[in-house]
């Protein structure tokens, strides 16, 4: 496996991945210190609902009280994007975490045991893979009712099959390797063989995909919110904030960029967040992919 020094060396050689790490670290800090950076106003019950300053549908530009201005319906943009970092991590990490576990369990079962188990699991993934993720997630959110938790459930249901499939494929590749045979010969239990010998040698492509997918999952969640299938209005969610800005893309004639802040700021937050994970995932790929290392 790669040594720490080699990792650091690779990272140094690749300025893009450093940018990625910086971006993600910044977002982690923002998420942790959200209550300090953007404290909820007094008497505000649920910090995950953006405080409103009035009810007017017309956005207001940045001012002293509202650092980034307000969206339509007077939701504070600064508060929304800061706390939205938490929802983004929440969606990304929960979905990818659960999907990884489900994928690893089902993928290992299918790949390791093969036969009828493999056939059944793979046919089930076929059914799910017949839907593009966004479409299936749309259908599930519609059926469950729009809420942040249901978006997470929908994305988990829609995205586990590709993980199960990927892990199965990688396990198939190492299943017949000598060291696995050896472990089997020594009478190791199936669980032990899978967790000790097979997974450590086959999980890296999946981890790389997972780090890249955290960004993708956040994009899907944002798209769902944008399409009107996400959180309820006012929930701290970047996608929804863009949907608030959707109708304010072009300002009045003579001043087409009058409402730039409603569009640009939440858009930039999503972009940077996803970008960070993608850069990081890329760096991981370069480092962890044993076929590429130390060429």
């Amino acid at each position: 496996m790669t040594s720490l020094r080699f990792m650091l060396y690779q990272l140094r050689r690749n300025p893009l991945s450093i940018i990625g790490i910086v971006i993600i670290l910044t977002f982690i800090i923002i998420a942790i210190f959200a209550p300090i950076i953007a404290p909820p106003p007094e008497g505000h019950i649920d910090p995950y609902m953006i405080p409103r300053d009035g009810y007017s549908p017309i956005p207001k530009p940045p001012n002293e009280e509202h650092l980034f201005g307000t969206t339509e319906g007077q939701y504070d943009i600064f508060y929304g994007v800061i706390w939205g970092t938490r929802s983004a991590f929440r969606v990304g990490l929960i979905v990818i975490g659960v999907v990884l576990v489900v994928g690893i369990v089902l993928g290992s079962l299918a790949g390791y045991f093969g036969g009828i188990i493999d056939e059944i699991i793979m046919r089930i993934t076929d059914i799910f893979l017949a839907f593009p993720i966004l479409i299936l997630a749309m259908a599930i959110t519609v059926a469950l009712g729009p809420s942040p938790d249901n978006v997470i459930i929908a994305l988990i249901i829609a995205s586990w099959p590709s993980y199960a499939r990927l892990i199965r494929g990688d396990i198939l590749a190492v299943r017949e390797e000598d060291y696995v045979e050896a472990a089997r010969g020594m009478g190791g239990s199936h669980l032990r063989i899978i967790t000790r010998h097979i997974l450590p040698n086959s999980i890296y492509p999946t981890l790389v995909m997972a780090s890249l997918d955290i960004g993708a999952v956040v994009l899907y969640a944002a798209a769902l919110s944008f399409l009107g299938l996400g959180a309820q209005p006012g929930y701290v969610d970047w996608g929804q904030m863009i949907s608030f800005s959707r109708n304010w893309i072009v300002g009045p004639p003579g001043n087409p960029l009058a409402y730039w802040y409603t569009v640009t700021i939440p858009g930039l937050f999503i972009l940077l967040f996803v970008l960070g994970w993608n850069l990081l995932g890329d760096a991981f790929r370069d480092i962890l992919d044993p076929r590429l290392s130390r060429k």
Partner: protein
Amino acid sequence: MELRAYIVRRLLLIIPVLFGVTLLIFGLLQLFSPVERAALYVTDPKQFANIAEVIEKYGLDQPVWVQYGHWITEIFQGNLGWSKVVSQPVTSAMLNFLPATLELAIFATPLIIFGGIFLGSKAAAHKDKAIDHATRLGAIVGWSLPTFWLGLMLLMVFYGLFSGLFPPERLSTEMNIVVHSEAFTQYTKLHIIDAILNGNGRVLLDSLRHLVLPVITLTVVNLAFIMRLMRSSMLEALGKGYILTARAKGLDENTVVSKHARRNALIPVLTVSGYIFAGLVNGVVITETIFNYKGLGWWAWQSAVNLDISGVLGFALFNGVLFVFTNLVVDLLYARIDPRVRLGGKVT
């Protein structure tokens, strides 16, 4: 013979998959209570007075399997139901909205695949040079862009700022009338092809102009996927022994890259074409919605948002069939390019 058996087997596999798809969607539908499902027929509370009648008429309070039985029988008779959002049978909705989406795909797919391959191999050939970083960064930013945001921004600039340069929709009003006039025969309903067949340059230009923004939106977001894959598989290929040999023989770098490395690097790219298809469908939903480009994606979105279950199911079935066929074709191609792969060895 082997090939035919393989194809037959793959086609047979479509049946359980589609059966599963119907079960999945029907299962989702059961998350609604009978009253809620009856309410799906209602757009205004004043229509709700007859709700008990509706429940009885459509048997919404019957046991699940009875309802599923009714429903699947209808499907076998070719009746996919009524798509409420577009007021027509689901089958005719699919036929009506397919050409628009096809037109988008015809332009976007080659741009995505060839553009991705080209940029990916360029980046790999100059690994860690400026061109590598620039293309990678560009692609990653593209990949990270929310499609809906990009689309709205493009619309703002090219329809708002440069008033009317690249308008939304499929055709201008004027050309739409031409297309639907008697003098213009709609052979395929793909405006571009029809325009060429009719020899009508204005319709051709008009529809091209309407395609620019949606095609760009779709391409930017999906290009990165191929590009990155191409880059890494190209890097892998460039590290192989035969490349070293070729270099040692003194072949110039261009020949090495394009003749030897790229061909081998293409194989993994080809195997993920299925994912490109999925990416396109995802992208098409949002792109068509934003540009008011009425195709299958727009219809799917409308169906989902308005809880038009027949529409969602029809779209999913259609997708399922298409997806399975795409994968079949990809696997066949795969076998052709890489002679080491033997058909039937692996069923994905």
